[in-house]
């Protein structure tokens, strides 16, 4: 199976009930538009449409349900004696036809221009984007009106062609940005390397992924074109021989139908148009949601989840020795589950972890093992659809779960701070460092203006940043500097516990050392307890006091750093330690066989059983618990 066919296999595997295309708005809108189309298809069958052109009926007849109305003209007639129902039957499909034709032409032009701009880049991109931006700014109706005053628009096709003039910039922008995004994706790069031509890549690899975007662009374009056409018709500048919805509105308004109370003249075309516009609008927003999963998944009031957490009953999970020093941070039997449409994912499964005062605890594990979820749970910011199902998180003995929103806000940053992965996007891009550091302080204390400034300057100095950094914006700082701003911010209120979530991982090696050193200095000076999440074993070895190794939502080993590295007990820890490359003894990289189990459905026995070299029958059906094997060294394995 080559790479290409793998892609298509993935693309066309279609699970009907799982499909994002089953979007309620999209289906509802599509159904509405189809219903309106039926008027055009079935209307001429059941009704004599000739009456739309020849005014042979009595003039100004009200609809049949009003006084004076007849069954011959159910929706009444207008001032020229033309039948309203017949006019609507003729006018409705013509509006849709103009819209569809203009939008399709616009989309095709946009597809070509957008792909060229996005794929070729450089000058092509520059020219196409500049022109389409300018074209988008021009008020289309002004130009259309001027054109219409010169060119006598006799038929709908001419009208559609003229409207297409303004239907291409939108799709061009959309296609360009999609191509730019998709171009960076792995499989497109692969296709590129495998020697596919540019056109092949554009239309075979990229087009299917852009389908919802293209569809949204088409439905949006159709309603824009119908709007333009109706506008011209309503001004009396469209085709005047054939009835159209806009023309009916024009004749109604110019014949004072509003004043004369002839509501049956002007309202029906408006209602039909509104139904058409609402139909396309629903389709477009539905398609936007299909194309952009973030919009779909957004659920409001996400933090109500906190209140539902059950207090954990005292379970017989071995805790860090009770006779040890007082714990600054005490996580007990933490269960966090993600309630996804595909099932309940168990992200952490009874994690119990204590951090002593002034200690750095390293938390390691592979991607997806739940270490970041632990951090988010400690900070009480588990994102929806995740929820802390059970557990306790104590800072200096006080449980955070169940604290009121206000009490929690009060405690935040003063007792519990975060050092995020600052090199990326942790700082607000539009405010200066002064304000970002200042608002953390001001949320909890009330220093004067000058005192605040001095405090921020001192903090910056503490992490080795120049004073001028205070009035800089994040984009003016390097990755390492941003990371140090994050550290300075974290220590601003001298917290008891700091969670450092991969604080060095996006930095280059030299900067990593500087940042790690800064962290250590700060910790020693302020006697802060810290949880440091990382997968950089080498860095952790030099920084942390103890290590907790996590696998698939469970802690498998907790040990002082020296014994963790020199005498790892759990087979998984051994694998991790072995995998640290060393220049002194080059050995073949140890590839771990097997896959992690499905997190929705953990096996009954040891969670590591599928990848463990030493697996025994006992491991298959009994879960080992975390027990202290040696002094301060805990492991969850049946080998000991």
């Amino acid at each position, binding site marked *: 199976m080559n790479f290409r066919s793998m892609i298509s296999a993935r693309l066309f595997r279609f699970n009907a009930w799982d499909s994002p295309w089953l979007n309620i708005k999209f289906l509802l809108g599509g159904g509405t538009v189809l219903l309106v189309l039926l008027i055009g298809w079935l209307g001429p069958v059941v009704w004599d449409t000739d009456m739309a052109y020849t005014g042979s009926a009595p003039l100004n007849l009200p609809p049949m349900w009003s006084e004076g109305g007849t069954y011959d003209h159910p929706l009444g007639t207008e001032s020229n004696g033309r039948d309203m129902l017949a006019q609507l039957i003729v006018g409705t499909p013509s509006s849709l036809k103009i819209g569809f034709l203009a939008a399709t032409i616009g989309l095709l032009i946009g597809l070509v221009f957008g792909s060229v701009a996005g794929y070729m880049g450089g000058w092509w991109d520059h020219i196409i984007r*500049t*022109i389409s*931006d*300018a074209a988008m*700014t*021009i*008020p*289309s*109706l*002004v130009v259309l*009106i*001027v*054109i*219409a*005053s*010169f*060119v*006598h628009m006799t038929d709908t096709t001419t009208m559609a062609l003229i409207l297409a003039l303004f239907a291409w910039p939108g799709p061009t922008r959309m296609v360009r940005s999609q191509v730019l995004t998709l171009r960076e994706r792995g499989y497109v790069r692969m296709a590129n390397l495998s020697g596919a031509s540019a056109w092949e890549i554009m239309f075979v690899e990229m087009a299917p992924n852009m389908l919802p975007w293209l569809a949204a662009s088409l439905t949006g374009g159709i*309603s824009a074109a119908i709007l*333009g056409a*109706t*506008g011209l018709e309503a*001004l009396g500048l469209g085709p005047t021989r054939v009835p159209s919805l806009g023309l009916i*509105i024009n004749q109604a*308004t110019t014949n004072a139908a*509003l*004043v004369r109370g002839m*509501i049956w003249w002007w309202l029906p075309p*408006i209602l039909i*148009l*509104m139904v058409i*516009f*609402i139909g*396309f*609008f629903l389709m477009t927003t539905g398609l*936007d949601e299909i194309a*952009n999963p973030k*919009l779909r998944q*957004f659920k*409001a*009031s996400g*933090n109500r989840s906190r209140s539902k957490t059950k207090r954990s009953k005292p379970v017989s999970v071995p805790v860090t020795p009770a006779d040890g020093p007082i714990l600054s941070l005490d996580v007990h039997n933490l269960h966090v589950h993600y309630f996804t449409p595909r099932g309940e994912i168990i992200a952490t499964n009874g994690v119990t972890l204590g951090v002593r005062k002034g200690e750095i605890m390293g938390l390691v594990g592979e991607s997806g093992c739940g270490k970041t979820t632990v951090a988010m749970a400690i*900070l009480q*910011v588990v*994102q929806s659809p995740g929820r802390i199902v059970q557990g306790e998180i104590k800072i200096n003995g006080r449980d955070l779960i169940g604290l009121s929103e206000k009490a929690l*806000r009060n*405690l*935040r*940053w*003063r007792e519990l*701070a*975060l050092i*995020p992965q600052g090199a990326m*996007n942790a700082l*607000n*891009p*539009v405010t200066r460092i002064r304000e970002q550091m200042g*608002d953390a302080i001001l*949320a909890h204390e009330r220093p004067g203006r000058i005192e605040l400034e001095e405090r921020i300057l001192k903090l910056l100095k503490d992490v080795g940043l120049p004073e001028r950094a205070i009035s800089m914006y994040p*984009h003016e700082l390097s990755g390492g500097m941003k990371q140090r701003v994050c550290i300075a911010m974290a220590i601003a209120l001298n917290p008891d516990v700091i969670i450092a979530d991969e604080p060095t991982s996006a930095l280059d090696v030299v900067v990593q050392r500087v940042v790690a050193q800064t962290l250590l200095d700060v910790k020693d000076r302020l006697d802060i307890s810290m949880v440091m999440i990382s997968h950089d074993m080498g860095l952790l070895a030099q920084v942390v006091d103890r290590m907790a190794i996590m696998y698939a939502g469970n802690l498998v080993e907790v040990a002082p750093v020296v014994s963790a590295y020199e005498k790892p007990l759990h087979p998984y820890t051994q694998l991790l330690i072995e995998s640290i490359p060393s220049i002194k003894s080059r050995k073949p990289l140890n590839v771990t066989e097997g896959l992690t189990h499905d997190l929705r459905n953990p096996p009954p026995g040891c969670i590591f059983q599928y990848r463990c070299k030493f697996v025994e029958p006992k491991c298959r059906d009994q879960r080992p618990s975390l027990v202290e094997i040696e002094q301060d060294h805990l492991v969850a394995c049946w080998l000991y």
Partner: protein
Amino acid sequence: MGGLTRGYFLQRLFMFLLTIWLGSTLIFFIPRLAPGDPISAMVNRISLDQGYVENSEQIIAVWKARFGLDDPLWVQYFRYWQNIFSLDFGYSLARFPTQAWEIVLPALPWSVGLLSVATFLSFFVGVTIGALMGWRLTPRWLQIILPTSLTFASIPYFMFGIVMIYVVAFQLGWLPSTGAYSRWVNPGWNWAFITDVVSHAILPVVSIVLTSMGGWALGMRGLMISVNNEDYFLLAQVKGLSPARIFFRYGVRNAILPAVTALAMGLGGLISGSILVEFIFAYPGTGYTLYESIITQDYTVTQAIANLMIFITAASVFLLDLLYPLIDPRITYRQNVR
């Protein structure tokens, strides 16, 4: 450091000029690509309406010569730009001794007033609604109420305007339905005139605001949702900031930037839509004047007003572009904002 740099200024100035050039050129060339010419089309239309025009061949020939329509296209194009730069579009055809610009200029303040109020209101209200819709802490009852404001989002302004005229002006008789002010008030800075102008503007403004704010709201909702997932938004929560501060300084402050860009891109559409609103309400702004000039076959006024409207659109976008660096400090570093 933020602020306006020379490079950015020149880039936006170029866009401004390009938009005007493109718009005016479209207006010039597209009609001329089609068979026929404005004078013949005009005479034809008159003869369609009235059945017969005496000496139509002669009239066409004279008028074509008068406007130089027999000259080569490039000569005409050159003269066209000469007219635009000197603001001299010639005499109005319908009201002969009057200059075209004398008809055009009085319409300008009405449109500028109507549109700036309507645009500001619809953007402000729409963005507020959208921001609240895209925020996790918005109270539940608001989350249910807010989307109803999108009901009219897809309906063209003018159609909503017709319904408003019928219901509010004719049935309820609360507000006037046509014009910018009543005939019997004395134009000037007096209270009677001001209230009269306001009462005439309410329906057109409301038609535009109610139908256009949904678009801003939807866009803003999407932008807020993406900001919700940003690291800095999470950090703001962890810092223990008040929800209001997180909402404004971290949420809205970031999400509004693309919304302002979208506003600049949407101004053309707004101005297009307002033409029909002015037509429906017989509001004496540029849109209505454009319509009138077409109906009265006033070729020179059409040219003048169409170019003016393109200029106004481009100028408003340019103005927004110049203000943009004030709210986005990164602007001088990123080459392409749009």
